[in-house]
C-alpha cells in the first residue's frame, strides 16, 4: 500500500511539475504575442516657444509699363530664340511653334467656320419664318384691338346716353315736384331708380372695356417676346462666326511665317512664360517692355508670407550679377496690394545694378510671438479638415504601468515646415505626444516608448 501511495505521489509530483512547466511556457508565449502587438513610438513634449517663418520668394524687376505677347492656345512650342532681359528689334524671332499643330488648328478652325455657317443658314431660314409668323401675329392682334375698341366704344356710348337720359328724367321729375302742377313722389323714385341702374350699367361696361384691353396687352406682350429669343441666337452665332474667321486669319498669317512669332516692336523681353515642348495657353506667352525704365520689384505672396510681411519690413534681396556672382542687398517693402486675385508685394529699387526682367530672391525671417503649445509638425495628423495628435498616457493595470494611446483633437494656429502651434485644453507641458511610430496607431492601442521607458 505504501509503495502504491508513493507511486501515486510521484506521479502527482511529476504532473504538478509538468503543469508548472506548461504554464511557464504559456507565460512566455503570451508575453511574446502581447509584445508583438505593441507599436514602437517616439514621443516628445510640447514646448512654449515662437515659430520662425523663413520666407523665400522669387520675383522680377518690372519695367514701368509692360505688354503681353499672345498667341493662340494649343500650339506646341518648338524653339525659343530669346531669353529674359534680352533687347529685341521689331521683327526679331521670339519663338517658333510646331507646324503640324498649326496645320491641325487651321483645319479645325475652318471646320468650325463651315459648321457655324451651316448652322447660321439653317437658323436664319427657320428664324425668318418664325419672325414672319411673329409679325403676322402682331398684326392680327392689332386688328383685333381695333375691332374690340370699336365695339366697346359703341357699347359705352349707348350706356352713357342711357345714363344721361335717366339723369335728365330724374332732374325733370325733381323740378316737377317743386312746382305746384304735375309731378309726384312715386314718379321721382322711379326716375332715381332708373338713373342708378343706368349708372351701374355704365360702370360695368367701362370695367369690361378695361379688362379686355388689359387682356389684349398681355397677349401682345407674349407675342412680342417669342421673336426676341430667336433673334438673340442668331446674333450670337454671327458673332462666333466672326471670331472664328479672325482666328483663322491670324493662324494663316502665322503659318505663312512658318510658325515663327516675332517681336511687334523694339523693346526688352521682361518675362518668358514658355517652355520648349509645352503648349501655349490663353494668357500672355511673354511680357515685353518698350524701354528699360525700371518700375519695381514685385513678389507674389502666398498665405504664409502675406501674414508675415508688412509694409516697411526690411528684407534681403539676393540676385546674380552678369558675371554670375551672387549678391545680397537690403530692401524695404513699399506696399502690398491685391491684384487679379493675387497678393503682390512691391520693393522700391535703388542702385544701378538692376535690369528689367532680372530675377531676384526675397529672403525674410519672421519670428512669431511665443505660443504656449508648440509641437513637432510630424506629430500632427489631418483628417476631414481637422487636426489631431496621438498622446501616450500612462495607465496602471495588472501588467504594471502601460502606455496607452489617446487621440486628441487640436486647433492649428500657426506652423512652419517643422513646428506647429496648436490650441488644446487637454495638452500640457508633460503630455507625451507621439512623433513617430513603426505602425499605424488607433485610439486605445498599447505602445512601447522608444527611449526604453
Amino acid at each position, binding site marked *: 500500500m505504501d509503495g502504491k501511495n508513493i507511486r501515486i505521489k510521484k506521479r*502527482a509530483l511529476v*504532473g504538478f511539475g509538468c*503543469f508548472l512547466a506548461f*504554464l511557464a511556457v504559456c*507565460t512566455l508565449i503570451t508575453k511574446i504575442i*502581447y509584445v508583438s502587438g505593441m507599436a514602437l513610438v517616439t514621443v516628445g513634449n510640447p514646448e512654449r516657444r515662437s515659430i520662425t517663418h523663413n520666407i523665400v520668394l522669387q520675383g522680377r524687376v518690372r519695367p514701368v509699363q509692360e505688354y503681353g505677347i499672345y498667341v493662340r492656345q494649343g500650339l506646341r512650342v518648338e524653339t525659343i530664340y530669346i531669353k529674359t532681359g534680352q533687347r529685341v528689334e521689331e521683327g526679331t524671332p521670339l519663338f517658333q511653334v510646331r507646324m503640324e499643330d498649326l496645320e491641325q488648328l487651321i483645319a479645325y478652325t475652318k471646320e468650325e467656320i463651315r459648321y457655324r455657317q451651316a448652322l447660321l443658314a439653317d437658323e436664319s431660314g427657320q428664324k425668318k419664318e418664325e419672325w414672319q409668323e411673329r409679325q403676322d401675329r402682331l398684326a392680327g392682334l392689332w386688328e383685333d384691338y381695333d375691332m374690340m375698341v370699336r365695339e366697346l366704344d359703341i357699347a359705352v356710348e349707348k350706356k352713357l346716353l342711357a345714363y344721361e337720359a335717366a339723369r335728365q328724367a330724374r332732374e325733370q321729375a325733381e323740378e316737377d315736384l317743386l312746382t305746384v302742377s304735375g309731378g309726384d313722389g312715386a314718379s321721382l323714385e322711379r326716375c332715381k331708380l332708373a338713373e342708378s341702374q343706368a349708372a351701374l350699367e355704365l360702370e360695368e361696361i367701362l370695367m369690361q372695356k378695361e379688362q379686355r384691353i388689359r387682356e389684349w396687352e398681355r397677349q401682345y406682350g407674349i407675342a412680342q417676346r417669342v421673336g426676341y429669343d430667336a433673334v438673340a441666337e442668331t446674333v450670337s452665332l454671327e458673332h462666333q462666326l466672326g471670331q472664328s474667321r479672325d482666328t483663322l486669319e491670324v493662324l494663316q498669317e502665322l503659318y505663312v511665317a512658318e510658325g515663327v512669332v516675332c517681336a511687334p516692336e523694339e523693346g526688352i523681353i521682361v518675362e518668358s512664360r514658355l517652355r520648349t515642348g509645352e503648349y501655349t495657353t490663353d494668357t500672355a506667352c511673354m511680357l515685353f517692355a518698350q524701354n528699360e525704365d525700371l518700375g519695381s520689384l514685385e513678389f507674389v505672396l502666398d498665405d504664409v508670407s502675406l501674414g508675415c510681411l508688412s509694409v516697411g519690413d526690411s528684407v534681403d534681396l539676393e540676385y546674380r550679377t552678369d558675371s554670375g556672382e551672387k549678391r545680397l542687398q537690403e530692401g524695404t517693402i513699399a506696399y502690398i496690394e491685391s491684384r487679379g486675385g493675387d497678393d503682390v508685394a512691391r520693393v522700391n529699387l535703388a542702385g544701378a545694378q538692376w535690369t528689367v526682367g532680372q530675377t531676384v530672391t526675397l529672403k525674410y525671417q519672421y519670428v512669431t510671438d511665443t505660443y504656449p503649445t508648440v509641437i513637432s509638425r510630424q506629430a500632427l495628423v489631418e483628417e476631414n479638415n481637422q487636426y489631431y495628435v496621438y498622446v501616450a498616457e500612462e495607465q*496602471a*493595470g*495588472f501588467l504594471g504601468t502601460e502606455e496607452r494611446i489617446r487621440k486628441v483633437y487640436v486647433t492649428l494656429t500657426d506652423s512652419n515646415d517643422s513646428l506647429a502651434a496648436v490650441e488644446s485644453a487637454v495638452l500640457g507641458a508633460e503630455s507625451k505626444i507621439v512623433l513617430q511610430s513603426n505602425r499605424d496607431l488607433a485610439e486605445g492601442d498599447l505602445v512601447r516608448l522608444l527611449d526604453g521607458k
Partner: protein
Amino acid sequence: MKDSLMKRAGCGVRHEELFAGKGGKMGKRHKIAGTVKKYTVTMAVAGLGISFLLPILILLSGSLADALEWQGRAEALALDTEGYVDWKWIPDYPTLEQYKRLLFYSPAFLKLFWNSVRMAGMILAGQLLVGIPGAWALASFRFKGRGALFTGYVILMLLPFQVTMLSRYLVVRQLGLLDTAGAVTLPAVFSTFPVFLVYRSFRSIPPELPEAARIDGAGEWRIFVRIGIPLARGGILAAMVLDFLESWNMVEEPLAFLKDKSLWPLSLYLPEIGLSQAGFSCAASLVTICMSWFVFRIFSDSLEKGIINSGL
C-alpha cells in the same frame, strides 16, 4: 476449516444452513437487507459527493461553452430579471476557445498566477524559517510566561483579519512596505496558525527522545533538526498545505495593502472578470483550482496525519 470452526463454536447445521444460505429464509432476508442498506448508504454518499463536485462540474461545462452560448444561458443574470439560467451540462457548441484565450492571450492572468506562486512560496519559506522553530521552542523549552505566550498565540489565531487589519496596516505603513509584496507576505510569515498546528505535533514527540539526545551530547539545534523535524514531519507538512491553501486563496490582505494591480495575486483577478466573459472566468477558475488540487493530491496523507496528530 470453516466447518471445524463452526463446530467448535457450537453452531449446528441449522446455523450453518442459515448462514450458508442453503434454503434458509431468515438468512436470505438478512442478506437482502444488508445489501439494500449497503447500496442505500452508497447512493446517499455518492449523491452527497456529486453535489460537492457540482461547482467543479459547472465550471468545466461553462468553460467549454463559447460567448454566444453564454449569452443565451445567462440572460436572466445579465438583465437582472426574474427568470432561470438555462443550463446545459454538455454545450451545444463546445470549444476550447476560452482555454486558448486564457493560456495564450491573457498575460494578466499568467502574471498574477506567478504572483500568487511567488507569494505563497515566500510565505511558506518564511514560516519554515520562523514558525517551525518558534513552535519547537514553545513545545520543548520551559520558560516563564510560556503558557501566557501560547495563550496569546491562540487568541491571535482566533481573531479574524478584519479585527487586526488596522493595526497591521499601520505597522506596514510605518515600515514603508505599503503597496509592496512585503505588505502581504511579512504578516503572513509571522502567522500563528502554523505555530499552533506544528506545536501539537512537536508535543506528541516523547520527551525522552530529545532528553536522550542531550545526554548523548547533541546540541539543541541538532535535536531540533535531527529529531524534532523528522518526527513532526506530518504536522509540518499539514501546516504547510493548509497555509498554502490559505495564501493561495487570500483576498482581504492584498485588497487592503496593495493598490498596484500588478502585485495582486490571482484570487483578486477572478472577480474582475465580468459576466460578459463568464466562459473565460470558468476556465480561469479551473486552472486556478488545479494548483490547490495538485498540492492536496501530493500531500493528502501528510495532511490527514498532521490533522489527526494536532488534535484539530
